[in-house]
């Protein structure tokens, strides 16, 4: 049976980016790779859509960026989580858990 990848619900991309950065600073490409890795390659993300998400998070002060040299000696922009971003990730995780359990409850109702 072919494995179908799940599309992302609106608003979850921000949470996934924050989660990916929780494990350490990364450039945009690395964030995409880490999301794929931590989701067991189950989540399908259009790679370009990561960047507007990252810019929005930076504007909100949840992540910050700086230019540095990548693993293959190229100039790349690295993102890291701020203290506000860590707090936001906790909030997002709690909201997500509440939503997921409520949805499950609704689906299991007879």
């Amino acid at each position, binding site marked *: 049976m072919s494995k179908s990848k799940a599309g992302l619900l609106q608003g979850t991309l921000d949470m996934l980016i924050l989660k990916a950065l929780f494990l350490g600073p990364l450039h945009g490409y690395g964030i995409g790779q880490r999301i794929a890795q931590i989701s067991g390659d189950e989540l399908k993300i259009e790679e370009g859509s990561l*960047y507007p998400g990252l810019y929005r998070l930076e504007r909100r002060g949840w992540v910050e960026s700086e230019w540095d040299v990548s693993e293959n000696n190229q100039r790349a922009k690295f993102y890291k989580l701020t203290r506000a971003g860590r707090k936001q990730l906790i909030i997002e995780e709690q909201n997500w858990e509440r939503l997921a359990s409520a949805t499950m409850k609704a689906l299991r109702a007879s």
Partner: protein
Amino acid sequence: MSWIKATLSFINARRHPDEVTREVETELRFHIEMRTRANIERGMKLQDAQNAALQSFGDFQRVKNSCCEIRRGLPFDSTLFKMGLHITLAVLSGLAALWAVNVPHHNLTGLMRQLIAIAVLAYLFIVVRRAKLQRRSDSEHMSDALAVPTERFRVNKSWTSDLSDASSGKITAHDELGRTPVERMFKS
């Protein structure tokens, strides 16, 4: 502090828009290059690897424009800022109007002050009216969003049979003999 950084970044983006575009482009090209390398490592030919990288990235131009727009945007929610600005202006206008009407109008200065008062009151009226219209349009948007389920219950002409005015699709309580549904039930 992050908001100071955000404000400085906003000012910088406004002052040097070309630099922002270049930065965004460099960042996005780095991504495509990394993906191309990964594709080559998986055994693809250079051209195929590049094409696949571009395809998995999505619309490059759209992403670039979107990123540049966000970078050049205000570092905070502009609707709150605009609302605050309107409230401040309205309060100042009100104070100015109070000051202006509180003088005798038998000399030129008094007359001028009264004209100023009329102008600021007119401005206040416009601000309040605009706010009301905005609120009304917002609530219409809300009801539009909520209207979807009720759409299903719109009168369908095929349901109305003899209880309906078929030409207008409207349910009418009386049939062609002028009887209500209850009368029809008991008197038939």
